[in-house]
């Protein structure tokens, strides 16, 4: 079976395909259209020639990245249900949007994620152990157990960190891109992710405006999964598409089938290449569907028709069409999916076992990193805490 290692340098992206007729449309047509490469049945959405632009190594790499998210998310949700972690937000059904984007990034690019882009980090080299340490908030977590699960932060791979506040991170992506331009780093760009609900936040509009005015090398990516907890996109946005909003900021919009990993890879690759050569920002709406709950704290059956969800879970599932393509083209052998899944699951279980054995962070770390050096009041408060009665965690994770 295939090894679980993935070419994290995303080397195929650099030679990624760009010559699709969709990119020649005018901006408004792009914003109202939907760019597709791969149809639900694993055949070409438009032409077989489009599919021929993606080599087998890239397809395998994308498929493995998607599978890793699916397997990891399932294990993490189970862990949450068993009370072994407090919270989880999965990206199930959105793996094509996540990995199609990640595979178009280069190592020097910077990623500013929202809630469902941890798979971008994993694809770029964030280890499972590091990811799970953050979810458990243990003493081995590089962020020292300070944040809710699903807030990984990995400087080594330029994967910044999401913010539960929603969309506050988007101006950061633009600022990073402004800095790249100011410092003359022309070979890279920043990726700023958001969700459909996030596009209602003022920070997104501020970020779009800054990016447009400053011509920043940034790719702004909205995963439109059609639900913000219980709120459908129709309550967030009166425009026909979210992508249309970019027009008002002088930014080229793209609208892509977010469950088509190859279309996502091509569109994000197109935008990233444009940013890196100094031709400014792009806004990309990736149309997908949140087939699972918003998070482990949510129950979608209370507010939506799950019959629609079932369609997205089955015939529109992004894994299914990649698998069909792989089996048809021969880059995925019969039985390989199962073997690969089993290996990834074993990897996740092993990492969980290792990380659950790591003790929580030491109490003294509670005052570290508020400032570069703890101030007198922090030192005094820690001393009081250490001298007084100590609390016991009520959480049995």
């Amino acid at each position, binding site marked *: 079976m295939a090894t679980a290692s993935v070419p994290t340098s995303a080397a195929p992206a650099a030679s990624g395909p760009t010559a699709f007729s969709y990119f020649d449309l005018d901006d408004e047509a792009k914003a109202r259209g939907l760019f597709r490469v791969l149809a639900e049945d694993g055949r070409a959405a438009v032409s077989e020639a489009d599919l021929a632009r993606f080599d087998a190594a890239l397809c395998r790499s994308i498929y493995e990245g998607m599978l890793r998210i699916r397997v990891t998310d399932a294990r993490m949700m189970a862990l949450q249900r068993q009370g072994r972690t407090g919270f989880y937000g999965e990206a199930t059904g959105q793996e094509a949007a996540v990995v199609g984007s990640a595979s178009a990034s280069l190592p020097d690019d*910077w990623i*500013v994620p929202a809630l469902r882009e941890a798979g971008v980090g994993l694809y770029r080299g964030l280890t499972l152990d590091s990811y799970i340490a953050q979810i458990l908030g243990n003493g081995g*977590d*590089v*962020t*020292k157990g*300070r*944040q809710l699960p699903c*807030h990984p*932060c*990995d*400087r080594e791979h330029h994967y*910044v*960190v999401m*913010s539960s*506040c929603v969309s*506050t*991170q*988007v*101006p*950061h*992506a*633009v*600022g*990073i*891109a*402004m*800095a*790249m*331009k*100011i*410092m003359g780093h022309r070979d890279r760009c*920043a990726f700023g992710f958001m969700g459909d609900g996030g596009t209602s936040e*003022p*920070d997104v509009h*501020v*970020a779009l*405006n*800054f990016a447009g*005015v400053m011509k920043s090398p940034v790719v702004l990516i909205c995963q439109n999964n059609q639900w913000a907890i219980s709120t459908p996109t129709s309550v967030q946005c009166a425009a026909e598409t979210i992508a249309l909003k970019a027009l008002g900021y002088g930014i080229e919009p793209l609208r892509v089938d977010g469950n088509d990993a190859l279309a996502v890879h091509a569109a994000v690759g197109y935008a990233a290449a444009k940013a890196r050569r100094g031709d400014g920002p792009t806004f990309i709406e990736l149309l997908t569907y949140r087939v699972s709950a918003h998070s482990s704290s949510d129950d979608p059956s209370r507010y939506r028709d799950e019959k629609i969800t079932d369609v997205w879970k089955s015939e529109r599932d992004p894994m299914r069409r990649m698998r069909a393509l792989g089996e048809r083209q021969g880059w995925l052998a019969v039985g390989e999916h199962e073997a690969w899944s089993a290996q990834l699951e074993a990897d996740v279980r092993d990492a969980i076992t290792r990380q659950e054995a790591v003790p929580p962070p030491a109490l003294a770390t509670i005052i*570290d*990193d*508020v*400032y*570069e050096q703890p*101030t*007198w*009041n922090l030192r005094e408060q820690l001393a009081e805490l250490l001298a007084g009665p100590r609390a016991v965690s009520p959480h049995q994770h």
Partner: protein
Amino acid sequence: MPVMNIIEAVRDALRTQMRQDQRVVVLGEDVGKFGGVFRATSGLHEEFGADRVIDTPLAEAGIIGAAIGMALYGLRPVPEIQFGDFIYPAFDQIVNELAKFRYRSGGQYPCPVVIRTPVGGGIRGGHYHSQSPEALFIHTPGLKVIAPSNPYDAKGLLLAAMRQNDPVLFMEPKRIYRASRGEVPEGEYELEIGKANVVREGSHVTVLCYSGMVSIAEEAAKKAEGQGLSIEVVDLRTLMPFDIDTILASVKKTGRCVVLHEAPKTCGFGAELIAAIQERAMEHLEAPILRVAGLDTPFPYTLEHEYMPNADRLLSTVRQVLEW
């Protein structure tokens, strides 16, 4: 030694640091070609160019949000918020993002942004050009808050702020931007962040103050001198972390204390100072610590002179403390 006002001292600090450190960039509304509505960045655009002195769209959340991204990547942004009253659209970015980045990234991402903003009343500016919002930011873990009262301190503290690695809110007293003049060394010097300054020694009562209120306290102390009253004036200079040692030394010496600030009284910074003193020096106090502060009202326009603390109000409260 050259004599400067606060605006000139701020500009001198920016220019000095920008010449030394290519990573320092200035951004904000009208800060570029125009040089800022108070002229604090005047001449910088010509010297350092549009890449380092950046005119931005009119959006405070964008200015601070972009500055955060720049700092994450490795620049040292010094954004200007045109008036302290306009800082609230950026409140989320400052409180939840800027101040927390180092902590929530486990130290992976320091965020050295120095936000400059003019604060305070007394300029006939009304509600939206007069506020003193320091308490909101002192109450924000992860942020340092600096509030100089004169040109020498402004330059020395701003240079120090731009050379350390934590986010800073640098509040400039706009009422005395030009009126406060003094000798300011050319080139390099730094004042230590977190150190107060006893600007006038006295033996009867300590007045704790900062920013635009220091000159009011000094005026009151001069008046009191003729009446046989000896007031010690302590200019806190840094509000977070504030200089507890200097405060306690002064209060233990005089046994009496009044806190003076422009911001509304309730939950103002004075409340914290009083709590901190009584936790540590109760046995040295001869009287309750009283406050002279702004009212718990929005900042008024026509009655501004009644709202603003002045020397006579301070002296009246000082006498209450002495006669207690």
